[in-house]
């Protein structure tokens, strides 16, 4: 398996014309790298570039606001994604339909739900953003919906898998004591998958934060926006401030979800 992967990679590298020689930095690249690396541990605490608009507040306030907006976009996208994922996940899970009469209708509905999920997932959130920018223009809702569609599809897919893999014994027992299919699913099977679903949702929130930051490159004022701006202004100190803010945000969320996971997921 590894050998096959290596062979495929070698062919690809050849096709792309990748050669180690090209790894040498482009003209000016070395100076850029040096200037860039020099500020890694001395991020700017105040504006350094002359190109900053005069009405901008202090740098740290601006970075904090960008971080807040990054979180807000992630929250908006994730909440919409969840609203999408719960019904879709249910409709695309075998356990939802097997509790009911299985017929051609069920098979069609299951197939349709899975096709919708595959469609949503197959387009990257940044490409959704590009499409929405073209269709709607630059409005925060474009970013939220762009995040929500692929994340909703992914969450739905994983939710359905977790629901289908959850142990069925308790559900069977509920059925034997007279519970209806909906009760079996909601109170016999779903509780067993809930912790895993929560942990996965939290992990996707972490991903949504990163994506939300990158949306800044498309004009939404998240951390990525300031990052790109600082780069174009050659203000590497400011750039590192934004980068550190992003890394700290992501690591903090990861720590938080790790603590919850250790406590609730076996």
């Amino acid at each position, binding site marked *: 398996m590894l050998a096959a992967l290596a062979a495929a990679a070698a062919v690809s590298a050849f096709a792309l014309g990748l050669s180690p020689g090209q790894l040498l930095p482009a003209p000016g690249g070395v100076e850029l790298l040096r200037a860039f690396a020099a500020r890694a541990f001395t991020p700017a605490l105040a504006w350094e570039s002359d190109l900053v608009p005069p009405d901008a507040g202090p740098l740290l306030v601006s970075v904090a606001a960008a971080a807040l907006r990054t979180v807000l976009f992630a929250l908006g996208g994730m909440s919409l994604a969840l609203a999408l994922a719960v019904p879709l996940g249910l409709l695309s899970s075998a356990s939802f339909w097997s509790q009911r009469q299985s017929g051609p209708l069920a098979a069609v509905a299951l197939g349709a739900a899975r096709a919708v999920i595959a469609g949503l997932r197959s387009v990257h959130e940044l490409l959704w953003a590009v499409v929405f920018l073209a269709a709607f223009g630059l409005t925060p809702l474009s970013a939220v919906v762009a995040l929500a569609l692929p994340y909703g599809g992914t969450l739905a897919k994983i939710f359905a898998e977790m629901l289908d893999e959850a142990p069925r014994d308790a559900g069977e027992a*509920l059925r034997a004591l*007279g*519970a*209806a299919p909906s009760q079996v699913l909601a*109170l*016999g099977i779903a509780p*067993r998958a809930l912790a895993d679903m929560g942990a996965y949702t939290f992990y996707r929130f972490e991903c949504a934060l990163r994506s939300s930051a990158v949306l800044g490159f498309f004009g939404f004022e998240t951390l990525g926006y300031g990052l790109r701006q600082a780069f174009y202004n050659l203000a590497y100190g400011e750039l590192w401030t934004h980068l550190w803010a992003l890394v700290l945000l992501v690591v903090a969320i990861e720590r938080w979800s790790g603590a919850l996971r250790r406590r609730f997921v076996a």
Partner: protein
Amino acid sequence: MHELTPGASAGVVLPRRGAVEPRGGAVARLDGVTVSLGGKVVLHGLDLIVRAGEAVALVGPSGAGKTTALRALGAALAPDRGRVWIEGQDVLALGSKERRRARSRVGFVHQQLALVPQLRVHQNVAAGRFGRVGLLSSLRATLFPSRRELIEMHTLTEQVGVAELLFRRTDTLSGGQQQRVAIARALYQEPVLLLADEPVASVDPERARAVVELLLALCRERGLALVVSLHDLDLAREHFDRLVGLRGGHLAFDAPAHNLADDHFARLYELERGDTIP
């Protein structure tokens, strides 16, 4: 041995589907029930009548069909042939809603307990009434139990000895404690018949006796019929008035405990040749 077996199933003419149960006084009844699982016949035309308030032990080697017989009695599986009556109703002829109602009249303590480990004890006990209510009421009872329901559940869990654990998460309980929760859930159904599948399979002898005595006491007090499948013959002979022997999916005997000689049990556990009774 065979004179103890009432009516071998072959010659029995089955009543029409949905017909009135031939004999009254039974809380549950199997009539010529044949069940196959995964292509293998595990019950061959089993006849069994459980009358109100009696205590029956179902004995036999593993693979004899004890669990399947219990599940058939609780209307938890659909037989290939034969009839299942619960409280005089043919469960195969019932609509899904009435069938749910019929199931809710039979409490079942599964061998693997089959509780939802992530829920709290009172939430698992509350599941006992799901057969009578819809989805919304059951969600309400699970998330926001009323004072009256909690008092009732506390009384029940006190009787089985786990009252102080009412609000604990079920997976933090020991196996023995969880078994008591499963019994409480079955009693919360207010059943007419309690089925217990190998309730002593994984407990030490001292604890096994205690569990069997608890089940008998709870059922006697409420006038419930009790059917327990047991590996342990001594325990069965000591505590139950009626013993039903199963072997290879066939009824081997069905008689009062004092009518059965050691010989019957010895044959029950003889090595089987194939699936047939010698």
